[in-house]
């Protein structure tokens, strides 16, 4: 019988996770409404304007939540 070599090698694998820089970066500030601005819209335009505003807010919230979750996951001890 062929005897294999003595297995004496011990391997430790350490996995480290990092958040991508574009996620960690602060989101661009929302443009402020300039003085004297005015928008005139019909009913459909009104609905779209409201939806656009809510969409932007939802995206920002999602990015902020992702940043927090990523920071928490990467600061966890080695697995």
């Amino acid at each position: 019988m062929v005897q294999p070599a003595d297995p004496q090698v011990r391997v430790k694998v350490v996995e480290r996770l990092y958040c991508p820089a574009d996620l960690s970066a602060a989101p661009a500030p929302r443009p402020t409404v300039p003085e004297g601005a005015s928008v005139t819209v019909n009913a459909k335009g009104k609905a779209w304007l409201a939806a656009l505003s809510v969409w932007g807010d939802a995206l920002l919230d999602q990015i902020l939540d992702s940043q927090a979750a990523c920071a928490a996951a990467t600061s966890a001890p080695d697995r």
Partner: protein
Amino acid sequence: MIRTIASFGATATVIALVGLGGIIAVQRDRLADKQAMIDDQAACVASIRLAPRADRPSVKCDLVVSTAVIRAQQSIDCDSALAGGAVYRTAASCSPMVKVVVADRDTARIERDGLQADLARLRADQAAALNRAAKRAKTQAHKETLAHAALDDAPVDGAGLTVCSADCLRQLAGEEPRAPGGGPTR
């Protein structure tokens, strides 16, 4: 004639005695050799009884016997090391083939533990993500109400179009309304 016969008989007797003496001497040597072998084997067995863990049982032992004794003892050590989970004693006493199997088993156990930890973490992550999504959905519904309120409160011109002024737009954007008289509030 009688003298001749007597002389011949004497000669034959001497030859016979000398031959007998030679045979006895040879047999005595062989007996001594056998006795030495028996003594060696007894010494070998006694040394194994006294020190079964010795690396080399005894110089009196035949190489085949001492090798077999060492193997048997290592096998017992290997079993006890495996039972006790002693990694380094396993490495010292078990045969390479056993060590390969043990290493495979240990690796599989580590992988299993790692995967179980991953699974638990992923489940926790998923639960947390669901919670965050639910919270965001609630916020979004509230902001949607505010956005519609801002536009619904805005005046309507002669053509039936909604005119959303700067204050209306700020409300839509969730900004603080400017204080009357102009100038930012923050």
